[in-house]
């Protein structure tokens, strides 16, 4: 290659520009939050969560007997669809980057994948925490309105401790969704895995525990679903915390670490 022919380009060399300032993490958070809800699937997930929460509140008011019009029941009715559907939001926020291949743009604009994934994680946890607080709020409203309609005393049977446990349970579910998304990086695959993880595995573990003595003692330590169950019943005892920690290490922390390592190294195609 000779230089004779490039001379004309030299006098057109670009004017030196100021180096742009780095992308702050708060901006990544805001972008990831937007991305969760500005797709068709994100939109409909939110709509369906809202609708099921409303339907559930209405159903409790209509069908529950007077003695069942308690805060606990309202909270559970609204919380359940959220606990099931919000992790799907977390899953899709990760997997769509691969399945929809939008990661090509995302990781080109922000090459530090850890920042993007960290942003998604933070947003997922925040959305989980905020939405369960909203659920408890709607539940409180339903409780007041429902008991007034039925003409019974309003029953407040969720303690602060219990409310915090429920928030934690919801956040854990979101983290499970997030973990499966990071590990599998395919929308359909991760969704199937999520339902297997939550509904098939817990049933299998239950069957195993009823038929095998040795597993019955082991179950709280290795069955993450089982250990989480205690969260919905209120404050955890020290051994219940130990169960949650141990089983969580196996079923959440370890696979998440593997998934994150894979995300950092894998090719984005």
């Amino acid at each position: 290659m000779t230089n004779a022919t490039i001379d004309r380009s030299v006098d057109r060399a670009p004017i030196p520009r100021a180096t742009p300032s780095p992308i702050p993490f708060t901006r990544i958070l805001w972008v990831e939050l937007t991305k969760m809800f500005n797709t068709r699937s994100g939109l409909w997930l939110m709509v369906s969560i809202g609708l099921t929460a409303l339907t559930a509140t209405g159903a409790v008011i209509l069908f529950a007997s007077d003695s069942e019009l308690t805060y606990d029941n309202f909270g559970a009715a609204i919380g359940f669809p959220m606990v099931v559907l919000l992790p799907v939001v977390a899953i899709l926020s990760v997997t769509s980057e691969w399945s929809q291949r939008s990661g090509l743009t995302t990781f080109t604009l922000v090459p530090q994948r850890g920042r993007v994934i960290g942003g998604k994680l933070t947003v997922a946890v925040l959305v989980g925490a905020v939405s369960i607080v909203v659920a408890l709020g709607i539940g409180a409203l339903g409780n007041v309105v429902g008991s007034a309609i039925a003409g019974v005393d309003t029953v407040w049977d969720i303690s602060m401790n219990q409310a915090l446990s429920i928030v934690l349970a919801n956040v854990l579910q979101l983290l499970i969704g997030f973990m499966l998304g990071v590990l599998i990086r395919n929308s359909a695959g991760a969704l199937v895995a999520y339902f297997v993880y939550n509904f098939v595995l817990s049933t299998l573990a239950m069957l195993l525990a009823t038929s095998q003595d040795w597993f019955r003692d082991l179950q709280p330590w290795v069955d993450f679903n089982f250990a989480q169950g205690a969260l919905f019943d209120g404050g955890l005892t020290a051994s219940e915390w130990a169960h949650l920690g141990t089983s969580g290490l196996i079923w959440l922390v370890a696979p998440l670490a593997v998934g994150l390592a894979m995300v950092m190294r894998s090719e984005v195609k």
Partner: protein
Amino acid sequence: MIDITALTRTYGGLRAVDDVTFSARPGRVTGFLGPNGAGKSTTMRVMVGLTPPTSGSATVLGRRHADLPNPGREVGVLLDASAQHAGRTGRETLKVAARTMGLPMSTVDDMLDTVSLTPKEAERRVKNYSLGMRQRLGIATALLGDPEVLILDEPANGLDPAGIRWMRDLLRGFANKGGTVLLSSHLLHEIEVIADDLVVIGQGRIVAQGTKDELLASAGTIVRAGDLIELGRALTGSGIHVVALGDDGYRAEAAPELVGKVAHAAGVPLHELRAADGAGLEEMFLELTAETSREGAAA
């Protein structure tokens, strides 16, 4: 400015990119040419950090892409127009990119205008876009941050002739303002009309590179004559390499003046004598990539 140095990327035993070195310079459009599966896209993915290299390096504006503080403001990238979230509208897609780069939302409307996507089209979800529209949206994303460097992989795919013309003018304007453009294609004709420099790649290796003028000149001379045997003997005798072109001519690897002189000295009347230019470049492209292309020696 893009600098690729001794870049290699292997997949198992396959060397998808094999010791590739080239530069794309400011103020010029560099065409990255090669048959399907030659390693163009892999090289481009390494440039923007989506694929880690096995060895070697790729820098943009003197830095690794991952070290750019806000890459979208310095490098515009379009690797695959289909790689956009199908459930997001065109406008939302651009808004996400604009927000990531920290740009005002007004740039989104300006850019939609630049790539001729109507407000109505921008409200539709990408799922319903034609390939040409996706290509325009992808180019809009690449241009959004007003970058100094453009890296575009097969950007003309799916564009209609008017769209191709529009893109050619756009890239030319970008380079004329001092920008660096690297665009890949497997179609020589597409690249030939726009590129200043060419890098030809086949099976992961660079088979030719230089300015288009140089490569055109090296493409040689087309010469036709009645007595082909005598002409061939004379040219070869003068140390000029010839390649048969059909049954009445050669492509001689020398300037037309020299070929004419040799023919005259040998007393062979010529039917045609001209610089090979585009036709020669195409033949050279096929020849260079023949052993590496799927069709074998199709040339």
